């Protein structure tokens, strides 16, 4: 992410110190992670100390301080999906791509997150890949779904 783009995002929020969460979120959405030098830049521009920025960046789960894979897989493990068998879905995904939740494959193809409820309880169990919901799935469906993202 280049400095110009960071400047653009910061100026979108008038450079106000309390906009730090919004700024970090925009960077996360675009860049999929928050590199250290970007955080340093944000700290300098907004006049918020780096330690405070790191406090925020490590507190909220959406922020990632590590590079993310090309495709983001999210297996819902909320109450309703849990009740409908999401543990087996997650297990299958882990088997197939060989990583645990919170990790990224070594080829940077996939990142895996297990997440609390996404409010699609009717669709459960479900997994979301790059924002598209795959609903009412069984462990057998997982391989076919992931094939589309190879």
């Amino acid at each position, binding site marked *: 992410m280049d400095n110009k783009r960071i400047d653009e995002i910061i100026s979108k929020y008038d450079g106000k110190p309390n906009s730090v*969460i919004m700024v970090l979120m925009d960077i996360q959405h675009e860049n999929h992670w928050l590199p250290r030098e970007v955080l340093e830049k944000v700290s300098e521009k907004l006049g918020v100390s780096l330690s405070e920025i790191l406090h925020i960046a490590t507190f909220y789960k*959406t922020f990632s301080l590590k590079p993310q894979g090309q495709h983001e897989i999210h297996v819902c493990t909320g109450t309703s999906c849990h009740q409908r068998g999401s543990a087996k879905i997650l297990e299958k995904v882990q088997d197939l791509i060989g990583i645990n939740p919170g990790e990224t494959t070594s080829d940077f193809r996939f990142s895996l997150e297990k997440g609390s409820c996404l409010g699609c309880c*009717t669709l459960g169990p479900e997994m979301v890949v790059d924002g598209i919901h795959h609903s009412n799935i069984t462990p057998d469906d997982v391989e076919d779904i992931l094939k589309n993202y190879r």
Partner: protein
Amino acid sequence: MARINSVKELEKVRKGIISKRDPNKPCVAICGGIGCLGGRDNLIHAFEREIKDQNLEGQVDVRVTGCHGFCAQGPNIVIYPEEICYVKVQPEDASEIVKQTLIGKKVVERLVYADPNTGEKAVYQSEIPYYRKQMRNLLGTNPKIDPKSIDDYLAINGYSSLAKALFKMTPEQVLEEIKKANLRGRGGGGFPAGLKWETARNAPAEIKYVICNGHEGEPGAYMDRAIFQGNPHLIIEGLIIGGYAIGAKQGFIYTRHDMPRLRENIDIALKAAYNYGFLGTNILGSGFDFDIEVHLDVGIFVSGEASALMRSIEGKAPEPRPKYTRTAVKGIWERPSNLNNVETWANVPQIIGKGADWYLGIGTEGSKGTKMISLSGNIVNSGVVEVPFGTSLKEIVYDIGGGIPNGKKLKAIHFGAAMGGSLPAELIDTPLDFDVMSKLGAAIGAGGLFVMDEDTNMVNMNKFFLDFLANESCGKCAPCREGIRQMLRILTRMSKGEGREGDIEALEELCEVGSLASLCALGKTTSSPIYSALRYFKKEYEASIKEKGCNA
């Protein structure tokens, strides 16, 4: 569109909008809720394409709406003006619907809802059992309006309550009306909104804030986003009225970052409200100024807690603080900050518009109006429901929810997710009521109703809830951070059938300390599911100690 500067102009604009509309113009209303579309646009594109291909451009509208409610049968569409409901509609069906229904005015039988038990077909919402027992005062308009169109909202009398409040009522009268209506907070506590407003109003400060909490992090709760995404102006109107009553000129909306359509609709609605002059300076020429700013949760449960949310709006990490002083007195930047949930704000325009006396006619003695409920878990018809308070849980689970799937028996009804409680099947006749449910140990919470069938093990379920809370605890206070961890250790052991004598007593003690000494509701109510399980399902807990294995 030019700014509207008076009530007279508003009514003129409204008349203009309505007069240009043909109520008989065919329209395909597609539910744009996440449960129906799943993040895809292909159903919308299929209809747009068919309408073009069959030379109906300009003659038929395609309206992407908010949630219709019957998520289990999604994707849902309604064809206007006949109001024909089609369920489980796929992009491949678009061609037939356009040909048969829009052109041929015939019903496509195979896409009509059929009762799974009797096979009886239901073409209209009023005939579908799921909708029949509901009172959809808030959600009913969702299929009828395009949430991106402020004109649609004006056409259904939108912003008339704001005009009434600003020109026919003093702020005190608005406050009195809300107090008289006994509007209770829908976010969890059921605290009277009017009293909270009064506290904020009376707090000595120049600058005050009102906040709409649209965080909705409770697992299994998804009704707020249904109304917010489907009818954003309703909430905005409520928030402005609240600002007027309390004496706040700045409002905040705090909502989810992970629902692009919700965010888009809120942003568009705010922009339109500014353009029309419902927001900004001198609203409708009344002299009242009000602004709204949107803030987003970035993925942590605790930031839905009032004091944590306010920290988040300040741009800080969302750690709750002790409530020696209420947030209504000292909240954002230590200023009086009145926070209510989306559904609470959604109730405000109708109370002001129709009056508290009308509102008092709905519900039970202590719980007035309707409540939106999201049904999830082992239930046939999961979806968003709106019923008057006083409706029995039996009606919600069976008549509306269609009962338990796969011929299983009902075991428990759970409200409030990880911080709520479970009622056993025997208490199914309990009416939906803040106080009655609280006394039974299953407070309504935000309104997520989670159904468990006979295969559910309560020890495992409680362990699951604790696992969630252990991850979401912010770690600031020890009773929550350490207490949850210890409870989880005990329950993990019990769920493996390795429970020890004294485990239940240790849990009870941890629950007591956690509920007394934690800083915020997350830690305080961690104990609720365990208390309710020990009250109604103690045998299962005992079995996991005595029998070395917890088979329900």
